[in-house]
């Protein structure tokens, strides 16, 4: 199967280890500085102006005055709480199934079937190969009617969508610890399997599991394709339908809020990582 080493970078919410580049020649550096400035300013403008435009649009009232009414009005919009609640339910169910399925599998593969690891890297990347719109066509074709009648069919399929991200996060966590030694130590101290998993493996995989959770939740809260084609009003579908019914200001406000919340959560996770890295570095210096 295809080796997708580079894709790993996508699933790593932590920042790349910053390595200061060496100045090769002072003169060259100065000549490079101006084009770098232009590139960075243009890129910054391209990414920030739309955010600013959306913010201004959502703060604008019909008379043109600035007001927070689009934001304060969000909770009382018809259908909003139902859509939000459905999205949160789906996020919780998806996360539970995903972790329950992928963490034991990844641990098992690392412990017992290390030779199969490249194959697992390949299998878990498959959902990226099959477009969601094609997958949902197939799922709706084969799913029994009883499953089609419930939104939780979406959760079951989201597990597949989240799989590449989750497997990679957990796999990276497993690679960073000496799993075999930990498990042997726990077993020789008389720990049974459940307590080994719960008290030894899971705490050591905390960061990996946490980032997997964030990615899954972000994915479920933002997923539009499958939910809209399965005709369920999750949050993104509601935002779109609400927009179609002529409420652009509120829709844009909700979109912005969703983006900011996702960003904050990712920042929290990456700072969590950072603190751990710093503590490890401190411990190494003390030793």
């Amino acid at each position, binding site marked *: 199967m*295809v*080796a997708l*080493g*580079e*894709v790993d*970078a*996508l699933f790593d*919410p932590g920042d*790349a280890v*910053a390595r200061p*580049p*060496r100045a090769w020649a002072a003169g*060259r550096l100065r000549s490079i500085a101006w*084009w*770098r400035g232009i*590139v*960075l300013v243009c*890129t910054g403008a*391209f*990414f920030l102006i*739309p955010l600013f*435009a*959306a913010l*201004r*649009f*959502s703060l604008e009232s019909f008379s043109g005055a600035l007001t927070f009414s689009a934001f304060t009005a969000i909770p009382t919009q018809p259908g909003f709480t139902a859509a939000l609640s459905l999205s949160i339910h789906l996020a919780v169910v998806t996360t539970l199934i995903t972790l329950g*399925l992928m963490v034991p*599998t990844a641990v098992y593969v690392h412990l*017992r*079937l290390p030779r199969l690891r490249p194959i697992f890297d390949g299998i878990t990347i*498959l959902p*990226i*190969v*099959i*477009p*969601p*719109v*094609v997958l*949902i*066509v*197939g799922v*709706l074709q*084969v799913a029994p009617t009883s499953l089609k009648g419930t939104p939780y069919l979406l959760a079951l399929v989201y*597990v*597949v969508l989240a799989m590449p991200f989750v497997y990679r996060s957990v796999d990276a966590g497993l690679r960073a610890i000496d799993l075999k030694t930990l498990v042997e130590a726990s077993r020789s101290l008389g720990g049974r399997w459940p307590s080994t998993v719960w008290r030894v493996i899971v705490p050591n995989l905390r960061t990996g599991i946490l980032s997997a959770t964030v990615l899954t939740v972000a994915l479920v809260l*933002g*997923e*539009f*394709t499958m939910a*809209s*084609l399965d005709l369920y009003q999750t949050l*993104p579908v509601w*935002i779109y339908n609400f927009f179609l019914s002529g409420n652009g200001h509120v829709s*844009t406000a909700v*979109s912005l809020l969703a*983006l900011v919340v*996702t960003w904050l959560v*990712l*920042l929290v996770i*990456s700072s969590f990582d950072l603190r751990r890295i710093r503590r490890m570095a401190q411990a190494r210096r003390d030793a």
Partner: protein
Amino acid sequence: MSPVRAADSQPLGRRRARAAFRAGAGILPFGIYITVFLAVPAVAVMVGAFRSPSGHWTWQNISIATHGVYAHGFVMSIELSLLTSVVPGVLGVVVANAVLTSRGRVLRRIVSSASGVFAQFGGVPLAFLFIATLGTTGLVTDWMKALGFDPWNHGFDLYTFFGVALVYTYFQLPLMVLVITPALEGLRPAWREAASGLGARSWGYWRHVGGPVLFPSFLGGVLLLFATSLSAYATAEVLTSGSIPLTSIQIGSFLNGNVIAGQQNVGKALGLGLMVVIAVVMVLYGMVQRRASRWSR
């Protein structure tokens, strides 16, 4: 082989088979899940592509899917994917390089976490962002009007091919930055110093050293962007309400019930087509990856 040995190896083989079976049991839940929710639906689409609504085998769907408006959809999808993988791909390398060679650590942290968010960002909110920016009454449109130039009067239209391409850049460029940064970090400063010691200017360095080393990773990144673009649905759907013929949107419209009688399975043929295009791209990607790993060794 003597009969005695054969008799000896028999129980050993059986024991091995049993051990392998037991080892396999641990990955059984995962295997079942993947089969039920990934393999079976994918196969259902492939089989459905060759079935008439009444259940007979037929080439009819494939034939419809490769002609007329649907053939146009494939061409448009592939063109859009090419455009939105190559241009953001090149820009992504430039931006990542600008960030990496800058001194500010804070800048790098911000870019790294922002790329993570923006690369995941897509769908409905993204479309709104650009409607508020470059729509008929968008912010930038207003700015340009104030300068006496209304882009909408000069052939610009956000809800067309190039508009969608511009919007896709918003998540494709950060994706490229994420993917190419490790490769750029792999360029050793010593190479640069050696090149400059031999009299190479910046262009010479990129032409003879940096470029060739980076190229396999670059192409791999571009192929990934291509696949992402090809399977994108939400942004284009919200932005254009399905008015530009992209294959993913055409597939969606089959599920939405806009179906001519007798053509119910054409959507599956289109799905099969997308899978074939992506499979070809992934095979290319695999070949490129093998080349790339030769360099990193």
